């Protein structure tokens, strides 16, 4: 695959200039996600009020794919209901497994830029790390 399509502008941009990579003050929920194969470690932090994600961030260390994916994710879920965020996580994880429909991927907007990663088994775990963590931490909410 063309390396520039893989490390496209969206990915490199979010990696270089993440909007949401910082600690959150008084998060309501937080969870650490680890990808042992490449040592990615991120902690997702969220503020939730009346079932709505009012603020979010992530901290940690990892490859461009995991960092960009987490940044895009946080950007998308702020202001959304928890159940909507979980719905997006579900689509994203299925997209990476090549199980999501075109319409669903459209719902993902910017996060759809990571679709090509599904052809890279070694990088799949990096791409879904943030989304998996979000899914875990909001279970039962």
């Amino acid at each position, binding site marked *: 695959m063309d*390396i520039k399509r*893989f490390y496209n502008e969206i990915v490199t941009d979010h990696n270089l200039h993440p909007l949401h990579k910082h600690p959150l003050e008084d998060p309501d929920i937080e969870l650490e996600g680890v990808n042992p194969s490449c040592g990615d470690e991120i902690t997702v932090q969220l503020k939730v009020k009346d079932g709505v994600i009012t603020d979010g961030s992530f901290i940690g260390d*990892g490859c461009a*794919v995991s960092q960009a994916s987490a940044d895009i994710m946080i950007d998308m879920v702020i202001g959304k209901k928890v159940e909507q965020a979980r719905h997006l996580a579900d689509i994203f994880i299925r997209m990476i497994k090549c199980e999501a429909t075109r319409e669903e991927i459209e719902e993902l907007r910017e996060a759809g830029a990571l679709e090509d990663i599904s052809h890279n088994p070694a990088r799949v775990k*990096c791409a879904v790390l943030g989304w998996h963590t979000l899914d875990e931490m909001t279970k039962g909410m």
Partner: protein
Amino acid sequence: MNKEEKKDLITNYRKLFPLLSDDIAYLDNAATTQKPGVVLDALKHYYEQDNANPFRGVYDLSERATELYEAARGKVAGFINAKYPEEIVFVRNATEALNLLAYSWCEDNLSESDEVVVSVMEHHSDFLPWKYMAEKKGARLVKLEPDQTGLISDDALERTLSDKTRIVALTHISNVLGRKNDIKHIAGKVHAAGALISVDGAQSVPHTAVDVRDLDCDFLSFSGHKMFAPMGIGVLYGKREHLEKMKPFLYGGEMIQTVHWDKVTYAEIPHRFEAGTVNVGGAVGLSAAIDFINGIGWETIEAQEEKLTKRAILGIKDIGNIRLIGSDRPEDHKGIVTFCVEDVHPHDVADILGKAGVCIRAGHHCAQPLMDHLGVRSTCRASFAFYNTEEEVDRFLTELSKVRGLMGY
């Protein structure tokens, strides 16, 4: 031989490896090496002509399998200059060798208040078994620390050894730093302190002549697959006097003398440590790999690997914005070059190079305590075999020089 002739020589050797081609530059030899045709042929020949369960049959075929297996043992003994063939125990890999040793040896030789010294640069395979056994026995695990270049000073050694030290576990060549430890010198000091030394030879035996009697190490572990042999065969060498006193590691067939409901006696070494049906094919493959190495000669192998290492390190310095891990001097890196590209995660670097057909490794290289010690989370590693070429190193450098740009720097 002039330069051109040497180059032709390597090109010709390359042709002996079916997997090698110009499509990819395979620079992950510290993880595993490719296999030459002679090794694959030996395997095939064994399974086509000589395969039977060794030691169990009295018929010809089984005896042939037994003979081949024992001949391989003799070949390995000669290769590392062991005094007796029974000092060679066949196992699956270095990891199994180190587990066998730690479990069996510590079981009877370690007690509360004893100390086990392990260097901080050990592969997890040479750290976790000792850690587990030390904890189990209530002994203390003592950290031996090299400096940032991987050098173990006499000072550091003397500070770590005590009259409580029972055994020291140390790698011959670090799989991250690439630096060769002066085992002979260190073994002298360890023995003077009344302890034994176990050497992890996973990265040394494939790349340089190792003479266990000259080094005077008590144990040596290595894997066949890192030295052109098949996966699934490895070696634990131990001085006879030590092995003879050790209890079995795995129990089952082939490792006994007599078994009755109330009384069991175990086989002599090395069979005591080789429970179950053994890997004759693997041993035959390893034997062929040793012949192959001997046929090429250490001089050629080491000269080529040195040349490639130097070229890679100088090239990396030229590119800039790359941190070399370990010593600054090429001669301190035995075929292993570990580095971090500033601002770019090693996984991204390896992925970018991988997509351009250059195979390198990224991650913690199963040496997380060393990563902590060096203050890095993970790194990239290029590692050479004698069949790699200067063109491959240049291809690696060219792709490496593009990485920061591709990532927007």
